[in-house]
């Protein structure tokens, strides 16, 4: 171009003056001072000034200087105006000022970078300098943010604290200010984290540690998350959980008035639900709660057991009361598991384990299996008499019984006691067929057909017996008259084993027996009848001097009494020969007839016990106001026998299980064999490990198994 001063060349001074003017105007606008907005012409003019200053050929290329000018505009403004204006304020006002100045800065950056835009097109790019925007932002950070953030942070934390204490604060402001922290990280969260978050979390930690107990009553997590950066929330929740729940979890659980045990003790179901929800969020948080629950239920159960034990007079336990209480306890805490604890498996498991502990305790010498069987027995016996106990109540109780049985490990023992008692119910009392069948159906559903097959057979027998009786009565119709006679035919194997005896019956009874035998032989093939006189009852007419009295006695007693039909007097020995009972039974019978409440026989000498040298006489002088007397013969108590029978069955069951396992596995180490055996049998009972060991040894002796010669701890199946 031509030399010399070109009037069109913009000098630096001239250019800077124009720019300064524009900047002043801009500042006035941004600060809210009365100032008209830039019109498009001004805008273009400013832009063009810069443009011209940049495209001019050196030495008039002012790009570098413009760039520096730009930077210094921000620096001066920040240092002389912005920073002081923030620093002179306090608390919320400081925050507001910061927020305001931040917004202003953003706009200023926007405007000025438009004016100076041409620099960004070539200059900054070519020189790889920070862009105009970057310069503007960095300037704020370096000259304002860096100098205020510490104090600002203090203010923010103070405000949050205020809110935690329940006061209202300007959350929007807080959000804006925290956004400033974030944005001054310029692409990284580091400023936010270092300058604010770390302090905040630290402070929160100590806050929650101090406030932990109060918190649990107030329940929900305060909604601090709202104005914090989203990254902070999980970190905060983590801190909260750590300090509030995990670190003090144990204390909280055990705390006297608000710990889990206390809540359970006081039935505070709402609080428990709350506790569940909160601990549910922590990994493994529910374990200690479930543990506290289990301990509590176990303690309550144990207390019931102890109560029953203490109340048991003369060795007899009030099982009706106890079992009812246990059923109620179960119902109560099952509701807890389903409601408060949202049906969570951990709590189902805790409930189960708790019940398994105390449901297997002995009470005053009786096992829980026996108690439960007795409970059922009484339930069914009384059902007939107690009209208030309607069918649906009985059904509900039966359901509870089946549930409880699940917790008892000696199920086979229960089955045996139940069977024995059922037999007595069916043979001697009035029984309700529906009830009997109902419980068996439920037991079968829960524990399998094998568990109930014998019992079901017994109930069916009673039905068949009725049919036979009808048939028999038709049969003897027209035949020579026999004494009225009912027979119940039992299928051996279903019923408990009873002793038979070679009782010498009075001749009248013999006729009955013979005629039934004949009838039965017609009706059936290849069946042998075994008469169990110990279970029979007889109605006798006692022709006493003052008035005749009907006596309802057992067959044994009847046989003894009828012996006196032909003789006035008999000695013990004579009776023994005539009636053909064994000593034990005869003594029992004679005692009931001569030393008990009703003395149908006179004994010489008149002592309290029967001896083999006694003699007996029919007591014709006997009388009573009743016309009919029932003289029960006390049954021999067979608890010991039941336990023995069950033990014997268990030995067979263990043998069978061991052989089954070894047959399929062929070779198995000892411990595995034992554990598999226990597993297989656990449905019915908990086998004693020592017994299993002894059975294994027995099987070795019987050549079913052998020890491995290399390894004596391993067994081999002998085919």
């Amino acid at each position, binding site marked *: 171009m031509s030399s010399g001063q070109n009037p069109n060349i913009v000098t630096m001074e001239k250019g800077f003056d124009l720019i300064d003017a524009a900047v002043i105007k801009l500042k006035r606008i941004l600060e809210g001072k009365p100032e008209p907005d830039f019109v498009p012409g001004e805008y273009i003019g400013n832009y063009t000034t810069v443009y011209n200053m940049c495209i001019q050929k050196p030495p008039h290329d002012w790009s570098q200087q413009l760039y520096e000018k730009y930077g210094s505009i921000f620096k001066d403004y920040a240092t002389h105006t912005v920073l002081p204006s923030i620093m002179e304020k306090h608390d919320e006002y400081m925050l507001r000022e910061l927020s305001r100045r931040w917004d202003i800065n953003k706009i200023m950056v926007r405007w000025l970078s438009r004016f100076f835009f041409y620099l960004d097109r070539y200059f900054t790019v070519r020189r790889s300098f920070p862009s105009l925007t970057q310069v503007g932002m960095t300037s704020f950070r370096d000259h304002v943010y860096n100098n205020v953030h510490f104090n600002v942070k203090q203010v923010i934390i103070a405000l949050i604290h205020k809110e935690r204490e329940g006061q209202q604060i300007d959350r929007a402001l807080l959000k804006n200010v925290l956004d400033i922290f974030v944005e001054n990280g310029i692409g990284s969260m580091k400023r936010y984290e270092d300058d604010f978050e770390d302090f905040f979390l630290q402070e929160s930690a100590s806050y929650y540690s101090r406030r932990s107990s109060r918190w649990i009553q107030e329940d929900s997590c305060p909604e601090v998350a709202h104005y914090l950066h989203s990254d902070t929330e999980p970190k905060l929740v983590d801190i909260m959980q750590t300090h509030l729940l995990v670190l003090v979890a144990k204390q909280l659980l055990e705390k006297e008035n608000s710990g889990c045990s206390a809540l359970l003790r006081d039935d505070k179901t709402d609080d428990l639900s709350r506790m569940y929800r909160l601990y549910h969020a922590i990994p493994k948080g529910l374990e200690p709660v479930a543990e506290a629950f289990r301990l509590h239920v176990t303690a309550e159960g144990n207390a019931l057991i102890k109560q029953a034990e203490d109340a048991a007079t003369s060795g007899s336990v009030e099982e009706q009361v106890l079992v009812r209480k246990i059923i109620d306890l179960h119902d109560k805490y099952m509701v807890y598991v389903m409601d408060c604890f949202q049906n969570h498996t951990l709590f189902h498991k805790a409930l189960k384990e708790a019940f398994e502990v105390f449901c297997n305790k002995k009470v005053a010498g009786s096992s829980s299996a026996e108690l439960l069987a007795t409970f059922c027995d009484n339930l069914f016996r009384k059902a007939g008499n107690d009209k208030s106990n309607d069918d649906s109540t009985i059904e509900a109780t039966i359901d509870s019984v089946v549930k409880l049985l699940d917790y008892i490990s000696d199920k086979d023992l229960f089955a045996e006691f139940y069977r024995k008692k059922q037999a007595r119910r069916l043979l001697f009392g009035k029984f309700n067929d529906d009830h009997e069948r109902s419980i068996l159906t439920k037991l079968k559903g829960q524990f399998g057909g094998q568990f109930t097959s014998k019992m079901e057979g017994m109930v069916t027998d009673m039905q068949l017996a009725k049919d036979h009786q009808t048939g028999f009565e038709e049969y003897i119709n027209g035949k020579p008259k026999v004494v009225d006679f009912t027979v119940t035919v039992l299928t051996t194997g279903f019923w408990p084993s009873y002793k038979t005896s070679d009782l010498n019956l009075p001749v009248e009874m013999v006729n009955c027996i013979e005629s039934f035998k004949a009838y039965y032989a017609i009706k059936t093939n290849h069946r042998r009848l075994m008469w169990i006189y110990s279970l029979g009852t007889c109605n006798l007419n006692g022709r006493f001097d003052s008035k005749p009295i009907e006596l309802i006695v057992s067959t044994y007693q009847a046989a003894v009494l009828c012996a006196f039909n032909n003789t006035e007097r008999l000695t013990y020995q004579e009776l023994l020969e005539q009636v053909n009972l064994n000593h034990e039974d005869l003594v029992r019978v004679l005692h009931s007839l001569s030393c008990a409440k009703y003395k149908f026989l006179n004994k010489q000498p008149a002592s309290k016990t029967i001896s083999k040298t006694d003699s007996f006489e029919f007591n014709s002088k006997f009388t009573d106001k009743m016309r009919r007397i029932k003289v029960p013969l006390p049954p021999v108590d067979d608890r010991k026998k039941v336990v023995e029978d069950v033990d014997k069955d268990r030995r067979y069951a263990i043998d069978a299980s061991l052989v089954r396992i070894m047959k399929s596995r062929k070779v198995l*180490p*000892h*411990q595995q064999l034992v554990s598999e055996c226990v597993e297989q049998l656990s449905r019915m009972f908990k086998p004693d490990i*020592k017994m299993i*060991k*002894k059975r*294994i*040894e027995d099987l*070795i*002796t019987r050549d079913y198994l052998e*020890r491995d010669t290399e390894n*004596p*701890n*391993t*067994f081999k199946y002998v085919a």
Partner: protein
Amino acid sequence: MPPSASKPSKKRSKPDSATDPVPSASSKKKSSKEMDGTDQLFNKYANTSSGVIDPEGIEKLCSSLKVPHTDIRILMLAWRMKAEKQGYFTKAEWRTALKALKVDTIPKLKKALPELEKEVRKPLNFADFYAYAFKYCLTEEKQKFLDIETICQLLDMVLGSTFRAQVDYFVDYLKVQKDYKVINMDQWMGFYRFCNEISFPDMTNYNLENAWPSILDEFFEWLREKQA
């Protein structure tokens, strides 16, 4: 087959009477001589009517050998001959043992006894001998147990020299306990394993969870209680 090959065999089949005067006959003579010695010895102790050495004969044998009647070495001899019935030695059994020991007179037999003992005490043989000792004492056909009394004596005889302490304690236990009236083979062998594997009397390496026969578990617990 080539004719030449067959020739030598044909030749050999003919006995060469010049060089070898009836070799088979002479060896027969030699072994029969041995047999005779053995048999003669047998007959010395055997019961003439039953044809076997009976308990009385064994007693005589023991006094000849100057060995006590209840000495373990007689049992070892029985083991050597695989005698089946306690208190009786058949001719065949007798021959087996004496042949194995290479003896045919009493003095020779007596000299061979220490050697026999050494042989039996070798670990591999001893386990077999130990099992044999139990079976030897069974008297009935299908019998599987020995009574406590017999077991105590047998243990003392068989293991007394090697496991004195274990035997003494176990015998004590057997005498006071009431659960077991008889001992079977598995329990018998179990005790031998016990002596070999378990350090005594501390029994620190005994594990109740292992497959030791129950009687040993109970012995262990009884002893522990005593030591407490």
